[in-house]
């Protein structure tokens, strides 16, 4: 599942002197269409043919949601430890896996958080990334999520959390499990200040992340096609012997079952979030709403271009 967009490597037959240009084309992970890489990247990695939303990096998400140059990552120096001394017999230890994971992904953990502006609105943004340890919730991710909510309280910012996770990190055992309680408590504390929490569920959002902060948003937005659920499809089939019908646990399935408020395509997410923050803040935090006009045309997402002010 990891490399949904595999790089196509064009072979230049018989011409040794010519360099292949491997980054020029990508193949869509769903419809297999060959796509011009730059256009695809400019479309936030959404396939123009079939609408498939490929997975994004933390940097891609920042570019998608925040105003240019407004992102300021905080506490990037948080590093995982091995609280249990997790050493499964005959398998690589957690300490070994952490070392190779950082080398492979070039990342230090599965989440980043910080401040920025979204359509001029001050926000606290946290992003999970499947690229590191399958986005699993361990101590560092839990701590960053909790701090993102506390930043929201301290600086009167709306909180946006973009989830992408396989669930709780087994290698941290109960320490990981308790991050569910910790992040849920932080979300709850944040809610007491009547600042909005917008939760974005992307592919995939599963297990302990679905069962904690990710589903506590004042508004829950899902990305088209994203797999969202508690138990993963493999666990359901193994445990119950039930075969999942096609389309089970997708964003659209969750919308139909009343579990998410909106399924929103990538290109519309920023405008949707801005609109929601303004709607929620009008009475409770009027200062947040200072850039908004008295009303916006019905059904027309309003996008205000702003300089990246903090």
């Amino acid at each position: 599942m990891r490399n949904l967009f595999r790089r196509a490597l064009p072979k230049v037959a018989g011409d040794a002197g010519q360099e292949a240009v491997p980054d020029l084309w990508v193949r869509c992970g769903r419809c297999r269409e060959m796509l011009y890489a730059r256009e695809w990247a400019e479309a936030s990695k959404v396939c123009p043919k079939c609408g498939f939303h490929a997975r994004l990096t933390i940097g891609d998400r920042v570019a998608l949601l925040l105003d240019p140059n407004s992102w300021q990552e905080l506490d990037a120096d948080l590093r995982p430890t091995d609280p249990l001394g997790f050493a499964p017999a005959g398998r690589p230890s957690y300490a070994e896996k952490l070392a190779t994971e950082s080398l492979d992904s070039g990342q230090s953990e599965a989440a980043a958080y910080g401040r920025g502006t979204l359509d001029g609105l001050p926000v606290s943004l946290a992003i999970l990334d499947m690229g590191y340890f399958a986005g699993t919730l361990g101590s560092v991710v839990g701590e960053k999520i909790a701090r993102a909510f506390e930043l929201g309280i301290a600086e009167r910012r709306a909180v946006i959390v973009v989830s992408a996770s396989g669930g709780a990190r087994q290698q941290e055992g109960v320490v990981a499990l308790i991050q569910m309680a910790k992040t849920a408590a932080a979300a709850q504390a944040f809610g007491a200040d009547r600042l909005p929490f917008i939760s974005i569920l992307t592919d995939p959002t599963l297990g302990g992340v679905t069962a904690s902060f990710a589903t506590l948003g004042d508004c829950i937005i899902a990305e088209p096609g994203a797999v969202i659920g508690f138990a993963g499809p493999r666990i359901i089939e193994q445990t119950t012997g039930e075969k999942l019908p096609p389309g089970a646990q997708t964003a659209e399935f969750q919308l139909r079952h009343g579990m998410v408020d909106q399924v929103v395509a990538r290109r519309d997410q920023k405008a949707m979030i801005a609109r929601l923050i303004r709607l929620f803040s009008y009475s409770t935090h009027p200062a947040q709403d200072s850039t908004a006009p008295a009303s916006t045309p019905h059904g027309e997402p309003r996008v205000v271009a702003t300089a990246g002010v903090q």
Partner: protein
Amino acid sequence: MSVVLDFERPAAEIRTKLDATEKQYAANPTPELDAQRIDLRRDFANRTQAIYRALSPWQTVQVARHPLRPQTMDYAIGMCTDFVEFHGDRVFGDDRAIVGGPARIDGRPVMLVGQHRGRETRERVERNFGSPHPEGYRKAHRLFELAEKFAMPVVTLMDTPGASPGLGDEERGQGWALAANLATLATLRVPVVCVVIGEGNSGGALAIGVGDRFLMLEHSIFSVASPEAAASIVWKDAKFAPQAADALKLTAPDLLRLKLIDRIVSEPVGGAHADPSAMIATLRSTVAGEIARLETVPADRLVSDRYEKYRRLGSWFESSRPATPVGSV
């Protein structure tokens, strides 16, 4: 009904001899038989104690799952008076894997909520083997709010292989139900005492296990996932459950050492199943003591202490600060 676990066999063999000797003595009370039976009693107690003092994590898992181990309904009846079982989530149905309702412990009204696995096959199926559906967690949520409304301390008893992972559970929002309970328990304005009485696995246990005090019975387990589920993630094969139990640090002594739980409640020699009524009496006085202490704390303070307790839990390196400890409790 008698169930002997593999590793209990050496003690069980002494027990068989003891029972025979007791019978002989009853028929023919000679001084030799009397001396013999006293020796055997002592041997049995010593051997049982030795076995239970040195349980491996996987053996602990088997004790935690012992079919004769007292379950939530045994505590509801044996530990409480006036227990009234409340049914249903008022939306979809009544989940039999979670039971709960108001009751008294030492005269003090409390709200009791726990998972119940059942014993005979039919009951076990009816209760989905202690794996709650979303409506079970929503029933629990309703009872938590009732407890707050009527200023009753909450007592939760965890005993579950995990939240139910079926298609219907997904359609009814299992993850959403669990998350709502975590958030509500975090800010509930009454004392919350949580006890793992058997197996406390994954978010399915945690969703009734966030509180001011977190206790484990001596031979219970508390884990991010069942050893089988963790084995199928780490080894890609559930057969490695014993190895997973070793790696996960899921026993009460390990978790207390890591400061992830508050207290261990001693079990009778040979485990809770060896003497259920002694176990129930011990838990009753333990929980009553915890509640009495928590009731002296003002509600605002209770909630902020609880927040701080969970806020501190975790372990990471941070260059700008000293290394953090694992737990805080």
